């Protein structure tokens, strides 16, 4: 239901064009949770913002298509996008405290969204808001609904944000690192919550994170991003059991596990600098399987079995 095709989002700076998203291609099916994993600077957050077109100069979408249920979002006007946001596509962000307006109560913020998109009386909005707060497991919802954000803990704020995102029952939920700022026990609860709500309402979810553990636990498919491109895409089971792109291999190897002690593996070098992307394959300075072609040509997407796609020269000739 979501098809991103060769997305290029560039930032114009004094130093030149920063190709933050440099030809990202992936798709999201109805009812599934797609994980978008990568490190800082790989362009995952900007991809999410591009979908909702929450970007302004000097950031521009210069090329590509974003198809949502068959319609190209890049062709829509700002007003049409505004009607879409919060209603058909919702987003939740990393730092819940930053995303809630500190001078409005939870109720005000929920009612605001409900009435903007669905109209209705205050009473309807109120009861729907209460229903949402209960759905996200906020204890004593009828009292908490009147609280201000600073009176709530981080985990609660995040749940409120989820309630706000889901109150209009969107078809697509984009979650940008929603649990990174939370404690591990709170994170586990919020993840359970997202999983259960998405599955029960057969929504689709684009889940952005850098934590492979989270991907393994709740995502159906995963897209691995590096330097603005998707370098590997496929089912979580396939990718974890058979990681193909050297970056994915490195990432999985360097992931620390709490259930078994393992020697620490590292990927040498530094995370790609979006202002200085290497020629050819952008991973070539850090790749342990690099060869000549990697410095000259950009790799094409290769479909291994089962819709497991890799963007790497190692698989080109097969």
């Amino acid at each position, binding site marked *: 239901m979501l098809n991103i095709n060769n997305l290029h989002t560039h930032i114009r700076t004094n130093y030149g064009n920063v190709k933050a998203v440099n030809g990202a291609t992936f798709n999201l099916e109805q009812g599934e949770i797609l994980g978008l994993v990568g*490190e*800082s600077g790989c362009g995952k957050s900007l991809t999410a913002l591009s979908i909702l077109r929450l970007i302004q100069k000097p950031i521009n979408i210069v090329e590509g298509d974003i198809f949502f249920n068959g319609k190209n979002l890049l062709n829509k006007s700002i007003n049409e996008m505004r009607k879409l946001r919060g209603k058909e596509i919702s987003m939740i962000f990393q730092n819940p405290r930053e995303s809630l307006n500190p001078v409005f109560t939870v109720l005000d913020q929920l009612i605001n969204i409900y009435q903007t998109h669905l109209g209705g009386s205050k009473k309807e909005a109120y009861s729907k808001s209460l229903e949402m707060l209960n759905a996200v497991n906020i*204890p004593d919802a009828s009292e908490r609904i009147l609280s201000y954000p600073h009176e709530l*803990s*981080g*985990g*609660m704020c995040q749940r409120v944000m989820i309630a706000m995102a889901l109150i209009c029952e969107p078809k697509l939920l984009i979650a940008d690192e929603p649990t990174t700022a939370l*404690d*591990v*026990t*709170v*994170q*586990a*609860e919020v*993840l*359970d919550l997202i999983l259960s709500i998405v599955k029960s309402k057969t929504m689709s979810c684009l889940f952005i994170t*850098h*934590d*492979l*553990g*989270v*991907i*393994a*636990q709740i995502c159906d498919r995963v897209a691995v991003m590096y330097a603005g491109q998707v370098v590997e895409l496929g089912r*979580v*089971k396939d990718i*974890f059991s058979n990681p193909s792109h050297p970056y994915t291999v*490195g*990432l*999985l190897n*360097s*992931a*620390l*596990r*709490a*259930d078994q*002690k*393992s020697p*620490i*593996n*590292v*990927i040498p070098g*530094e*995370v790609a600098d979006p202002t200085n992307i290497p020629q050819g394959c952008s991973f070539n300075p850090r790749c342990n399987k690099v060869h000549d072609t990697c410095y000259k040509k950009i790799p094409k997407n290769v479909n291994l079995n089962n819709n497991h796609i890799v963007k790497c020269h190692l698989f080109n000739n097969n």
Partner: protein
Amino acid sequence: MIEIKNLSKTFEQGGNFFTNSKKIYAVSNVSLNIEPGNAVGLVGESGCGKSTFARCVLQLIKPTGGSVFFNGVDLTKINGNSLKKLRAKFQMVFQDPGESLNPRMKISEIIGEPLNLHTNFSTLEKRYRMEEIMNEVGLKTHHLERYPHQFSGGQQQRIGIGRAIATKPDFIVLDEPTSALDVSIRGQILKLLQDLKYRFNLSYLLITHDLNVVLNVCDYVAVMYLGKIVEFGTTESIFSSPLHPYTQALLSSIPIPDPMSKNKRIKLKGEIPSPTKIHKICALHGRCPVKNSNCDSEYPLILEKKPGHFAACWNTNRIITN
């Protein structure tokens, strides 16, 4: 050899002429020993007091009670000058590498400062030592002339570590050294820390909320909740058989990067209470999935339940299953 005995820190918040100030019991009666060459991990969630504890150990915050013995000298009782001189022997690595480096100082000035303060090195000796440090942390000597903002997060943390080892200390406190770093860089920094620990026989107090880090770098683990240590033991023991319900909940919540093994989570009810009361009974009361009659009436002392493995719980003979 570091012996921390009954360390407490209480903050006073608010309060003026008309109202009483609120007391926050950040750290309550914590005792811990760190042997030379050992890394002790201190884990807990936000608000449990671990950062405050770390700073109290190093006397960056003055504790309200208790003592910290460093090789037999009580750091809480000595005067400012003697403390300053001893600082050459214990250092700290901070969480946010970009923030912990003075943006207006060159790298040579940053790692040269401890040398200036604690040694009588000549300019040449200082330069030699600085180049040595850069090598040890995996950076190049020409980096000495640059400013912090010209480096990536991982490199900045290496500089922070370089500054900490400059005076060849015995003990380093690390406050979430990898939390602000990318996943692929985390491994590099942890490897560096392991390396330095073996080469220089350093002791670490590693504060983190990330249990994965602890498993791979630390020899012992202390679990902290609401200002108290609720469990302590070797890393193997704690990870293989956690005794305290809080530790069990914590360990079961970590998402495992393996889609084939799903977490069996142990859930705690409710939220972490705020540390504004002294607890006469177990701090986990009300949230704990296990309970017996003692839990309501007395505070469980931290006792040795298995050899070398301590826990503060009345129910430690039961491992919780879902």
